[in-house]
């Protein structure tokens, strides 16, 4: 697949915009998931993922073909998201958690027009809970956790993406994993 992606990138570099479509389709889930794990909001994650692809397209000539494309792309997405977190002003989104309601979001305040199957609600609740616990971690832990568990990236790749030494990646993963173990043991 990596070879096929590289072929497509060559075409994009030559000005073929349609070749970019397959690149987006192939990477969209992972990029979105990394953004979501970091920012914790579906609208913002989608917006950031979109922006990451646009930046990748605009800067495609600075991508070095000898390196793994996903690493380069994830770096763009991660940097954009971390940047957004830094600049973040309090914003209110429909699926942002309502303060003091312990995991309820704005959707739960809207009249339910359709009853969801029980297990779906349950797993959604668990997933919301997990994400809330991830959000309780400082950004530097969240970023290693997102990269490690979304695409099972190697420690070396994470070190490359975040531009931090591999020893630091390990320490952050260990601490992040311990913190989440404590928070998630009763799930």
């Amino acid at each position: 697949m990596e070879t096929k992606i590289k072929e497509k990138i060559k075409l994009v570099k030559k000005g073929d915009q349609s070749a970019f479509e397959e690149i987006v389709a192939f990477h969209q889930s992972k990029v979105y998931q990394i953004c979501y794990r970091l920012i914790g909001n579906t609208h913002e994650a989608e917006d950031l993922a979109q922006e990451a692809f646009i930046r990748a397209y605009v800067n495609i000539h600075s991508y070095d073909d000898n390196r793994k494309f996903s690493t380069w792309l994830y770096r763009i997405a991660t940097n954009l998201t971390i940047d957004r977190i830094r600049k973040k002003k309090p914003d209110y989104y429909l699926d942002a958690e309502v303060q003091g309601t312990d995991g309820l979001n704005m959707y739960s305040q809207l009249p339910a027009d359709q009853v969801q199957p029980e297990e779906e609600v349950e797993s959604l609740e668990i997933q919301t809970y997990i994400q809330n616990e991830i959000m309780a971690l400082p950004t530097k832990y969240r970023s290693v956790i997102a990269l490690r568990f979304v695409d099972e990236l190697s420690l070396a790749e994470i070190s490359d993406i975040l531009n931090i030494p591999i020893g630091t990646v390990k320490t952050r993963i260990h601490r992040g994993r311990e913190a989440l173990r404590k928070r998630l043991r009763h799930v």
Partner: protein
Amino acid sequence: MTCKKEFIQLMHHYLDGDLNKEEEQQLRTHLQSCKECQNHFQELKRTITLLESNSHLQPSPNFTNKVINSLPKEKKRISYLR
């Protein structure tokens, strides 16, 4: 628990794929005899499973189209026709 700290380190190295055969055996032997560490290790593995469940997280179905439509337009070829 005096044994704990050292073995928790080993667990994390194991989960990173950083243990050699000897260390792995050391951890394995310890886990067989220490209920508390065994429990800790199970919790760590479960945490990883929970963190890896990402499949429900998907962008909207028209994501690719939205990206393609937001790309800057291809450079227009200079037209000599008037």
